[in-house]
C-alpha cells in the first residue's frame, strides 16, 4: 500500500512516517511538500490508498487542495491533516469528500489512535473522535 503525505513542514513528515510505519510496516510512505508535486506523485503511485493532506499548503486557499486531490485520485481516500480545528472547516472538508479530518493539535497517542482507525478503514473527526 502507498501512503502519501503532502505538507510543507518537513518536521511533520518525520513523525507521521514513523507513526504510519509502526501501524503498517509494509506501507510505502511518500513525502511531498507542495501541491503540484503532491498531485504529480499521487497520480504516479500505483497502490495509492491514502493521502494525508495539509490544507494550509502555500498558494492554496480553502478546500482547493482537497478538491484537486479528489479529482486527481478518486479511488484514494484523502484525509485532511490541519492546524485549523474550526467546526465549519471540518464540515466543509467532509462535504468535499475528505475521508477524515485530523487536527495537528492531537497528542501523539491520540494521533496514533486516529491513524489506526483510518488505516483500519474507519473515519476520524475532531469532535466525535473515531466514527463507527
Amino acid at each position, binding site marked *: 500500500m502507498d501512503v502519501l503525505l503532502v505538507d510543507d513542514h*518537513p518536521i511533520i513528515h518525520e*513523525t507521521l512516517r*514513523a507513526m504510519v510505519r509502526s501501524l503498517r510496516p509494509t506501507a510505502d510512505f511518500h513525502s511531498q511538500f507542495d501541491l503540484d508535486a503532491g498531485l504529480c506523485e499521487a497520480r504516479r503511485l500505483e497502490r495509492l490508498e491514502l493521502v494525508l493532506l495539509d490544507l494550509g499548503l502555500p498558494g492554496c486557499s480553502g478546500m482547493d487542495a482537497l478538491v484537486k486531490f479528489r479529482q486527481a485520485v478518486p479511488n484514494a481516500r484523502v484525509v485532511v491533516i490541519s*492546524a485549523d480545528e474550526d467546526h465549519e472547516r471540518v464540515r466543509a472538508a467532509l462535504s468535499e469528500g475528505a475521508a477524515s479530518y485530523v487536527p495537528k493539535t492531537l*497528542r501523539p497517542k491520540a494521533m496514533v489512535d486516529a491513524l489506526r482507525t483510518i488505516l483500519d478503514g474507519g473515519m476520524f473527526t475532531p469532535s466525535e473522535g473515531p466514527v463507527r
Partner: protein
Amino acid sequence: MDVLLVDDHPILHETLRVVVGSVAPQAQFHGETSLGGGISKARQLKDLQLVLLDLMLPSCTGIDALVQFLKVLPRLRILIISATEDSDSVRAALDAGAVGYLPKTSNPKVIAEAVHTVLQGGTYVPPQALGAVPHLKTPITLADLGITERQADVLKLVTKGLSNSEIARQLSIAENTVKQHAHAAYRALGVSSRTEAMVVLAKMGIRGDAQ
C-alpha cells in the same frame, strides 16, 4: 541542561526532541503546549539553556508570546519556530530579543544546525531574512570595512546578545566606550541597530562566537 519547546502541536514535539538530542545529547527536553504552561515550566527548570517558541500559540499572536516570556525571564535564550517566514516578522522577533528564527518549513538538518548555533551562544538568522539587507560583495572582512579590532570585539559580543554592561565587564572597558565602539561599527556596516548588525554579520558568515 534543559531545553524547553513551547508549541501547540504535540506532533512536533517528538521530532524536535530527537533533533535537539542529536546536537545536545546531554540536554533534558521538555515540551509544553501553551504559553502559560511554558512560562510556568521555564520558571521551574534549574538549568534552562534554550526555549524553542512557536509564535502561533492559541492565546497570543505575533511576538506577544516572546515579549511575555522575556518580561518574566529576561536573560532567556529564545529561538522562534514559526510558520510565518517573512523578513519583517524575523526582524521584529530579533528586535524583541529572540536569539534566532526558524521557519517551520526548515528541514530537520537546518533545525539541528540552528539549535547548535544558539546553544553555542550564537544567533541564527534564516536565509529568507537576508534579502532585506543591502548586498555586500563577498568575501569581505570587518577590517576591510574599517572596523578596528576593538570595535569588532564589541560587535561580536553585541551579536551574542550581551548587554552593554555585560560587554563592558567582559572587555574591562567602560560602558560608554562600549557604546562608542558599537555605534562606530554599525556606521561602518551601514546599519543602525543591533538586529541589522546581526543580519549583516550572518550574511558575512561571521558568528558571535567565531574568532
